[in-house]
């Protein structure tokens, strides 16, 4: 268990500034998710925290102590990599026990106990004797997590642990991680992803990064309901928030009007008219894509099945209390 504090952290590779001054506090036992578009510096920030990368300037504190110069193993962290990074020549058991064996002072029995406990937690006990290549992607990722658990770290770091898994597995493993966090609630976790569904479902708080800087930090619901900028608004939520500009927005006294698909109502007296260009039926609900003279099609989410033909005209209205208004600078007008 550790709180982590970043004070004006900067990182440059040669002449390129990648992290441009990040201040952030991650609380003890918190599940913090870093999201942001590709290349914004999420992985780099995580690696700075882990100690795998040197900090160019600024201070990193764990529980109030500066750790800038500490090696990863001394920071009491564990890390799960996108590519699993399992030792291919070791069995699952050896993979999980390797770190402990090297730390002096653990008896064989103790090691076995800890490995088995972690394995039970992740339901991979029956695979302990297999090699990584004999496991499926999801199982491998669980082993990687198990390896981290075994070390009993104060801080858990994840770098896009799910992006190599297929959709179904992603959902299942996501839930595993959430349960893990709940069961180990005094361990701080930091999780990098660019999938906003993961961010929403897992995070205690989300940190949205953009181009090496923190754009907004807050709980998922804060970000969903009160985004601090167009950037955050567009990033959080699925389907993506619709942005409407021009006259239609001006009517609401703003430059850009943001409205989510689920907050649009189809009514005969809808204030906007659009042409259906595509309908997706997902069973429980349906997405209707409308051409409304905006840059991108406008999505409307409907309960149950929808059966509009392409080309049909539809009138829709936004729910007034769910509108997000943004000014020229992309900042919300409240």
């Amino acid at each position, binding site marked *: 268990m550790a709180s982590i504090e970043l004070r004006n952290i900067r990182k440059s590779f040669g002449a390129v500034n990648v992290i441009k001054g990040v201040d952030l506090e991650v609380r003890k036992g918190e599940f913090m998710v870093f999201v942001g578009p590709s290349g914004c510096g999420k992985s780099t920030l995580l690696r700075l925290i*882990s*100690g*795998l990368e040197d900090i160019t300037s600024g201070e990193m504190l764990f529980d109030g102590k500066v750790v800038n110069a500490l*090696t*990863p*193993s*001394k920071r009491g*962290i*564990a*890390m799960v*990599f996108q*590519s699993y*990074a*399992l*030792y*291919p*020549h070791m069995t699952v058991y050896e993979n999980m026990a*390797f*770190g402990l064996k*090297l*730390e002096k002072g653990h008896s064989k029995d103790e090691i076995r106990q800890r490995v088995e406990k972690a394995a039970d937690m992740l339901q991979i006990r029956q695979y302990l004797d297999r090699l990584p*290549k004999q496991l499926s992607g999801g199982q491998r990722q669980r082993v990687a997590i198990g*390896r981290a658990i075994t*070390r009993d770290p104060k801080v858990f770091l994840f770098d896009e642990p799910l992006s190599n898994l297929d959709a179904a597995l992603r959902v299942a493993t996501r839930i595993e991680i959430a349960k893990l966090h709940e069961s180990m609630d005094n361990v701080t976790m930091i999780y990098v992803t660019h999938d906003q569904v993961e961010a929403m479902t897992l995070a205690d708080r989300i940190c949205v990064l953009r181009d090496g800087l923190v754009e907004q930090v807050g709980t998922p619901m804060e970000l969903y309901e009160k985004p601090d900028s167009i950037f955050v608004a567009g990033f959080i939520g699925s389907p993506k928030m619709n942005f409407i500009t021009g006259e239609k927005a001006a009517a609401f006294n703003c430059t850009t009007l943001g409205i989510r698909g689920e907050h649009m109502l189809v009514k005969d007296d809808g204030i906007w008219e659009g042409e259906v260009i595509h309908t997706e039926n997902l069973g429980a609900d349906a997405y209707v894509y409308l051409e409304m003279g905006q840059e991108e099609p406008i999505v409307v989410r409907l309960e149950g099945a929808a059966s509009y033909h392409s080309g049909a005209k539809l009138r829709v209205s936004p729910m007034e209390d769910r509108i997000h208004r943004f000014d020229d600078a992309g900042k919300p007008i409240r």
Partner: protein
Amino acid sequence: MKSELLQQRIRAARWFLVPMLIALAIVAGWPLLRSIWFSFTDVTLNDLYGAEWVGFSNYLRWQVLESGTVRYRGVLADPAWWNAVWNTVRFAFWSVAWETVLGMVVALVLNAEFRGRGIVRAAILIPWAIPTIVSAKMWSWMLNDQFGIINDLGMKLGLLSAPVAWTASADTAMTAVLIVDIWKTTPFMALLILAGLQMIPKDIYEAADIDGVHPVKQFFRITLPLVRPALMVAIIFRVLDALRIFDLIYVLTPNSSSTKTMSVLAQENLFQFNNFAEGSTQSTLLFLLIAIFTILYIWLGKVNFEGGDR
């Protein structure tokens, strides 16, 4: 029922393989069979075409003397042959062992990132690019006891008390040959190992850093096991080559019995002495030895030539 596609591919495969197989059959298959055949005849170089079949007598024959003692003759009873076998094996073992170790060191260095790596990489390949006949001569010059720079250097650095006649004395001749061979082929080995090293994913080392694994431990517990497949293939190619070693020894110490290898002995019998049949026998035995080694190695080392054993 084979589809058109499959037929087309099999037809193409046939056309693609045939030229290569014909080329190999002519250039290697025929001479090879001929050598093997020669080993069962009494052929001499003065009369290549009038050879007569003598069965295994070039390999081993015996003669019961009047006293009743049996005398064994033939290559398998020839101490010179066994001496050559011993030399060859010794040479192959030490050269490959050293080349592997040194090659690993060099490969590790080249695998690190530092400035001027490209130049260093090229510099390291120089020994390998110099024709063997030239480098052998170069080294015999450098190893000379009177005007050789190695002795001079050794004396200046205080490593040697008196000049050593490297290639002359039986004790050092093998060492000299080994030095040259190791110098010459380590780069090749390093290259192959380097290729293997580069296939190890970087993130595994990061995982190890996080696990707190000391770099030395990382080498033995992670790098070495993971580079093993590449290493195995590199080693087998090198061993095959080392077992056939000829030109280096031929130039450096052609007549020293402490370095005479099977190939050198065979060459001597084939072309210097009037023993073409024995020479062929020795070549055939060498071939057999290499083949057996390869099979054993592939079998015991579980080298998977078909697809990689990761």
